[in-house]
């Protein structure tokens, strides 16, 4: 030991770190940072394992993933660990981040702890996204197409950037290898360096003491107060603090093992063939909120949301400790900070739920309306329902549980709209609905109107044969006239 320390100096260094006094009261709230490190190390180790069989070529990756998932001993389990390890790392990062923010731990002298932390968070998310692409199935291919299309929105260099991400004009020969390079070499190296810096800063500046209301941070006296407090009340880092970290880290690993065993990794999709059309790219769950933002944002503001907003969020996060590095740390004395967290956090939860439901997507495989729902098996009502089934109405509109949710639910539409109003909407379409006046024949429109007119909660009961009173003449004159006028307005303002 003495020899080793004489030659390296490491034994004394490690001992001094283990023995250094830490702030008292540092309890279970402080275990998340080291848990993120545990999750990162687990990703490195499981990643090294997967690398022994994964083939990073556009043509070979999918088969090697199939092999890992279906044939390789422990392959599916290892993939599961890597998948859930990534989820775990993101979750723990967010908890750690919230803890640090709410307890004001980013204030003097820990500004750079926070800034390296924000960089770590961003790098982790990019690495996780690249990991989803390296799972090279059809969703990965189109996920990358979507990401590079977003990058193409960057002013001036957008096209070039999209070209760079894909590695050419089309997804193919050079795409996977460069994302793979990012995922296993560039970003992990960056992560490891940032983690090193972050941990060094934590040791240098000491773990922040739990905040006390009324006792703010004053840069002039903070350091001497902190060291006085450590001398008087400090607890040894080892074992008092570290032991909790170890217990929690063990729990983290066990949960990942359990999830890998019981749930497993996300299923491998269709082959990575850009000419197949049954793709429905959807990121892993921790990106659903972003996925929802992209779908729900006002489309005129796409450039802002895709490019300016992420940059703005990054800048705001980086500048937090520069703007406010002194004063109260306790959340009870920082109502605005708490309100911001509650607001953003509930927003992200709501968007994640929206991303899970994904109501904005047309249901291209919706099951057709049955005769039971239609309430007829022949005649105009039935024919109209067939128009509804076959002309794509069902993709976006629900009737009694069948169909998509992109457009309004039409189960009781006849209670809300008259036949003329229905005619107007069908003939003219809307921002999110094609102009069906171009698509349907007069007979089809009439039948469809007959069918929709039976969708009444009061008056008609579905499930019975119904007769329909059709207004005289094909499409009432008023409706047709109005629809022509609207069509003119529409064409004047495309």
């Amino acid at each position, binding site marked *: 030991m003495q020899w080793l320390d004489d030659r390296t100096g490491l034994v004394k260094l490690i001992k001094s770190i283990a023995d250094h006094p830490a702030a008292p009261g540092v309890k279970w709230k402080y275990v998340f940072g080291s848990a993120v490190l545990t999750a990162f190390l687990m990703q490195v180790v499981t990643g090294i394992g997967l690398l022994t069989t994964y083939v990073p070529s556009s043509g070979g990756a999918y088969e090697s993933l199939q092999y890992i998932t279906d044939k390789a001993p422990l392959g599916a389990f290892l993939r599961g660990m890597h998948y859930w390890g990534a989820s775990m790392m993101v979750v723990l990062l967010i908890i750690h981040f919230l803890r640090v923010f709410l307890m004001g731990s980013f204030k003097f002298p820990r500004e750079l702890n926070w800034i390296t932390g924000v960089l770590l968070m961003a790098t982790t998310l990019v690495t996780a996204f690249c990991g989803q692409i390296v799972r090279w199935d059809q969703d990965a291919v189109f996920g990358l197409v979507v990401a590079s299309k977003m990058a193409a929105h960057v002013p001036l260099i957008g*096209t070039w950037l999209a070209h760079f991400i894909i590695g050419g004009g089309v997804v193919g020969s050079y795409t996977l290898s460069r994302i793979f390079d990012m995922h296993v070499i560039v970003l992990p190296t960056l992560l490891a360096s940032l983690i090193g810096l972050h941990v060094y800063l934590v040791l240098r500046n000491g773990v922040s003491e739990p905040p006390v209301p009324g006792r703010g941070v004053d840069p002039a006296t903070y350091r001497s107060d902190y060291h006085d407090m450590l001398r008087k009340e400090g607890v040894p880092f080892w074992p008092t603090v570290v032991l909790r970290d170890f217990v929690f880290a063990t729990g983290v690993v066990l949960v990942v093992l359990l999830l890998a065993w019981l749930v497993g990794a996300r299923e491998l999709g269709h082959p990575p063939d850009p000419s197949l059309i049954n793709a429905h790219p959807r990121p892993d769950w921790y990106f659903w909120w972003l996925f929802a933002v992209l779908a729900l944002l006002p489309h005129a503001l796409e450039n802002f949301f895709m490019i300016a907003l992420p940059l703005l969020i990054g800048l705001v996060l980086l500048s937090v400790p520069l703007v406010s590095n002194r004063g109260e740390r306790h959340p009870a004395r920082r109502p605005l900070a708490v309100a911001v967290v509650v607001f953003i956090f509930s927003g992200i939860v709501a968007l994640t739920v929206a991303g899970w439901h994904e109501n904005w997507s047309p249901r291209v495989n919706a099951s057709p309306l049955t005769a039971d729902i239609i309430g007829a098996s022949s005649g105009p009502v039935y024919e109209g329902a067939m128009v509804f089934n076959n002309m794509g109405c069902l993709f976006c509109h629900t009737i009694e549980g069948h169909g998509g949710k992109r457009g309004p639910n039409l189960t009781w539409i006849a209670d809300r709209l008259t036949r003329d109003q229905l005619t107007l909407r069908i003939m003219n379409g809307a921002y999110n609905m094609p102009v069906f006046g171009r698509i349907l024949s007069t007979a089809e429109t009439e039948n469809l109107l007959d069918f929709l007119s039976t969708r009444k909660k009061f008056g008609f009961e579905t499930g019975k044969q119904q007769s329909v009173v059709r207004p005289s003449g094909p499409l009432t004159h008023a409706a047709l006239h109005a629809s022509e006028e609207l069509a003119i307005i529409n064409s004047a303002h495309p």
Partner: protein
Amino acid sequence: MKIDDNNEACRSGEENPGRRRFLARLGVAVGSLIAIMAGLPVIGYILLPVSRKMHRQWVSVGPADRFTVGDTVLVSFENPSARPWTGVSGKTGAWVRRVGDGNFIAFVLNCSHLGCPVRWEASPKLFICPCHGSVYYEDGTVAAGPAPFSLQRFRVRVRSGQVELESRPLPFTETTT
């Protein structure tokens, strides 16, 4: 130049701070030069192929008489830029419609919004994007949803009975569109 640790000048840092500073800057400069010399070829290797324009080439997608007038069908072809290791990822798809005897239209699969593959729905004669619900009429013009412009097309020609498409990059990676 002889480098000698005992050289009087080397130990005179305190008396000669200007020299110290100069050597420190020189060290940084030489270090940066080394990094640039080693790094430039690497950066060039990564960037040069990317900035090159994609080679366009006519590719056959099958005999013309296999296409029925009025039908819109999905075809796929191996992109000319594919390499031996590209596998199925080197394929490109297109919606091809025969509109007259020797007259064909071919649409790019990628939605003009975010690039998801659009589906052709034959009964309403609409292209529908499953991602964010953009809809296009049969001529590729926007019918509904967030799509900012029409579906892009491939150039098509018929050569000795074969329908040929001109391979092209994804619309948003092109500076010309």
